[in-house]
């Protein structure tokens, strides 16, 4: 199951325009991530996510949202819960194919749910 989960993230990370993808636990603890080497802007985003993911998920749950998008500088951050206790975050370049990334991210959440639930 863990291999399948890791493969799913590998495949998502290979999509053109995706800068990083991370699987978080709902308490903000990163489970596994795919990201390039040292990138200050990505690190800042990751720290922000770790701090706020619990609150964002609470709001999403209240509003009944399946995904939420934040824009930081030129990055588009897609937050999509993947199971009761996990959430998938995808960071993509602003000019990337957003529709494709959204579809692939949502497909990945379904695979992750099958792995962890």
């Amino acid at each position, binding site marked *: 199951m863990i291999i399948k989960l890791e493969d799913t993230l590998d495949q998502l990370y290979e999509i053109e325009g995706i800068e990083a993808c991370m699987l978080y636990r709902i308490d903000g603890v990163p*489970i596994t991530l795919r990201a390039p080497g040292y990138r200050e802007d990505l690190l800042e985003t990751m720290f922000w996510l770790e701090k706020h993911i619990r609150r964002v998920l609470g709001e999403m749950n209240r509003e009944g949202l399946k995904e939420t998008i934040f824009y930081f500088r030129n990055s588009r951050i897609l937050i999509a819960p993947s199971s009761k206790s*996990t959430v998938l975050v995808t960071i993509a370049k602003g000019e990337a194919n957003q529709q494709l990334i959204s579809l692939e991210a949502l497909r990945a959440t379904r695979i992750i749910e099958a*792995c*962890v639930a």
Partner: protein
Amino acid sequence: MKNGRILTGIYGLDDLMDGGFRKNTINSIYGGPGVGKTTFALQYSLFGLDRGEKVLYVSFEMSEQQIIRDCTDIGWGIVKDYIEEGDLKILHIFGEDLEFPSLDITEIIKKSISGHNPRIVIDPFTYPTFYSDKEKRKSISTIFQDLRTLGTTIVVLEEPADGATSTNTTGTGEIQTNNKALSMPLYLSDTVLFLQNLGFGEMYDRTIRIMKHRGSKHGEGIYPYSIETGLGIVLRASKKQIERVMPKTKFDERFVKAIEKTRSMGELGNILAARIEILRKNWVHDEDPQQILEMVIEQEKK
């Protein structure tokens, strides 16, 4: 024991901990109710007992009968034989009965241990009461120093039942606890393992995180585990997670060049070369060390 390491006996954990606990250290198992702290301690004990080691189990909570019953339920009925043979000694004491914890605990343990470098378990360590914060730190420090001379110890620490609010982990992996009584043993321990259970019944609900492992390389992620009847705690780290802890040799050439360069710096260069050699043997990252090596050499030239 392997390469000076005491194997934890937890399936899948030693690979992430540079081979296990260091000999003669204090290792804290920290977590809320129902995460498997006592199972961890019993599994650690059983692993040693199966290999002919001696174990002293100091219980501030459960009696010998309760421990035997719990072990039998999980499929470890053999502990009864170990008790009869004298390899496992269970001491059931009450924390409130200790007048001077720092003196009493170590005295009791000293009198009860047999064999060389036994495995020692204190479950839970939360019970001994101390008079003041100042006295507490000194007492815990004294207890830990004494225990280090006696064997390799596991100390079970209980997170308060409202753990979700009282204890949090930050992005840097640091435990933030509001409870001073709990944080002190964590700071003074050589190793801290944080066990969590979110309670949704999913794979990443039950996780182990190695918060601290002095003088050792260790995995920095969270690792899912389950408690299996007959086996105990089984960790499920992925191959990639295990590989991340293994030293990488693909950058050896860079290190060798850096060592050659530093040797030409005179006496200070030789000291630095030895350090870079140690770094080479312990380089676990996939990143090229070139930038770090250049920075270090420049700094040391000053």
